[in-house]
């Protein structure tokens, strides 16, 4: 979407229910405090919310209605969104577009998920899953090919897990905050070679919510806005085709669409929240987002470019690796972190002079079919 064909839209409120187990709470009980926090942060009342977009994957019918009926909302339109693990970011995008095009003055976005334990059981097991393929194995297969083609050292993947915990130590909302060493990562339980337990995100439950508003409503509310600069959504369909698995085509396409939409260059990005479900994914997405060249992800990870204090810090929140991964909530929570960073409210982990932030999330059934969403936010519209 071209910027000159839409209104300016901002995030004016964020709310996060830190990810954890929540064995005793229902999904509605988990999610509602995120909504309350986002509304209070925005300064709007519930009567000023025009619509809601709600992302989840496994929570059954009309989750948004079930959450909001317990918060006194009236007859607002509610759209429930599914795009696997990219559902949260896709809901953000749909809300952004709906306000940008003048359908609504405000919108609430909710991402919420209550997860079980262990490997994710996809509802529709495909041939690969039936034969025993798993989500971590998909990333391991991509990592192995990357190591084969580019000589990527195994330590580069481990370093991403080390970085994640280093950043998580600075984030009170992160779930796993103990530091780890490269050696500990490599020696932890094998999952799918080369990936170990500390290189795979855990399941988690939790919720995140945003209030977004048109420029007119931003002025009326008096809230501090963080502006949408651009959005990109792309898919990939692996239909037994011989494509390059070291390159997530959907990440490349979504990033390009977002940069074009925002009319910025990747070098303008100050801080990134990236879908690090697995360390291998983060390394490949560095390349897909254009943070480094193709084949250079290993060097980039090892040289500290994406660490706190580096050129472009990635996953200051600790990412999925240190926060865990409630599928529908993840993409919305990434936006919370970017908003805190751009507001200068990321206490203890603030990236200096962060002006433009990028959130990237990805979902799918292994590599067979999936969605990637990239969102760009900035301090100025």
């Amino acid at each position: 979407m071209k910027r000159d064909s839409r209104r300016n839209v901002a995030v004016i409120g964020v709310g996060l229910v830190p990810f954890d187990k929540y064995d005793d709470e229902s999904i509605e009980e988990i999610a509602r405090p995120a909504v309350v926090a986002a509304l209070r942060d925005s300064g709007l009342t519930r009567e000023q919310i025009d619509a809601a977009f709600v992302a989840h994957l496994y929570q059954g019918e009309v989750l948004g209605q079930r959450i909001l009926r317990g918060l006194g909302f009236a007859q607002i339109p509610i759209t429930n969104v599914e795009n696997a693990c990219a559902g949260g970011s896709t809901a953000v995008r749909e809300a952004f577009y709906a306000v940008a095009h003048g359908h609504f003055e405000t919108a609430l976005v909710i991402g919420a998920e209550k997860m079980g334990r262990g490997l994710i059981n996809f509802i529709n097991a495909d041939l690969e899953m039936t034969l025993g393929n798993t989500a971590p194995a998909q990333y391991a297969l991509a990592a192995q090919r990357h190591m084969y083609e580019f000589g990527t050292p195994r330590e580069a993947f481990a370093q991403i897990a080390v970085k994640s915990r280093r950043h998580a130590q600075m984030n009170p909302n992160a779930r796993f905050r103990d530091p780890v060493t490269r050696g500990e990562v490599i020696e932890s339980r094998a999952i799918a070679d080369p990936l170990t337990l500390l290189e795979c995100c855990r399941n988690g439950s939790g919720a995140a919510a945003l209030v977004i508003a048109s420029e007119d409503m931003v002025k009326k509310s008096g809230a501090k806005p963080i502006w949408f600069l651009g959005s990109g959504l792309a898919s990939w369909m692996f239909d037994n085709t011989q494509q390059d698995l070291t390159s997530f085509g959907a990440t490349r396409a979504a990033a390009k669409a977002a940069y074009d939409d925002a009319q910025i260059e990747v070098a303008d990005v100050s801080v990134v929240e990236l879908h690090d479900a697995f360390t291998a994914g983060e390394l490949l997405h560095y390349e897909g987002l254009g943070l480094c060249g193709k084949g250079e992800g290993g060097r980039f990870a090892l040289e500290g470019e994406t660490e706190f204090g580096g050129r472009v810090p990635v996953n200051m929140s600790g990412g999925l690796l240190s926060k865990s991964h409630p599928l529908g909530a993840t993409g919305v929570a990434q936006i919370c972190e970017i908003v805190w960073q751009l507001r200068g409210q990321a206490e203890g982990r603030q990236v200096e002079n962060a002006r433009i932030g990028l959130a990237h999330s990805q979902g799918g059934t292994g590599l067979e079919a999936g969605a990637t969403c990239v969102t760009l936010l900035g301090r100025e519209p």
Partner: protein
Amino acid sequence: MSANGEMLWPGLGGEDNHGPYLQGGACKSCGQVVLGMRTLCPKCWTADSIVPVPVGRTGRLYTRTTIHAMPSGFDQPYAVGYVDLPEGIRVFAHLEGGDQSPAIGDTVELTFAPLRKDKQGQPGRGPRYRKANMESAP
């Protein structure tokens, strides 16, 4: 199918005079080759144009891993990979383990083997590639 169990996925493949094969389909209309049978050609969209052809007797290993965190129905870690077939498609399959386990870039040949147990503990068969042995083994 045999004493070694049913195929894990119906119509996955079989064995003929030339040995084991995966079930492929070729479009009579445009020539596109796909894995499995389909009612609609993904390339030219012609309906009921896919005729069965055997594929995947051999291939080249594109990438591989060993899965240690196993879903139900597996007892011990197993090697898997993507195999690029000369028919122009890529398939996910198991790989022979141990010292002879194929490496990325190796030419591989298809076997069928019991891979995974169902909920009743019955073994299900599926494709497992091994290093192609040009000199026939003794």
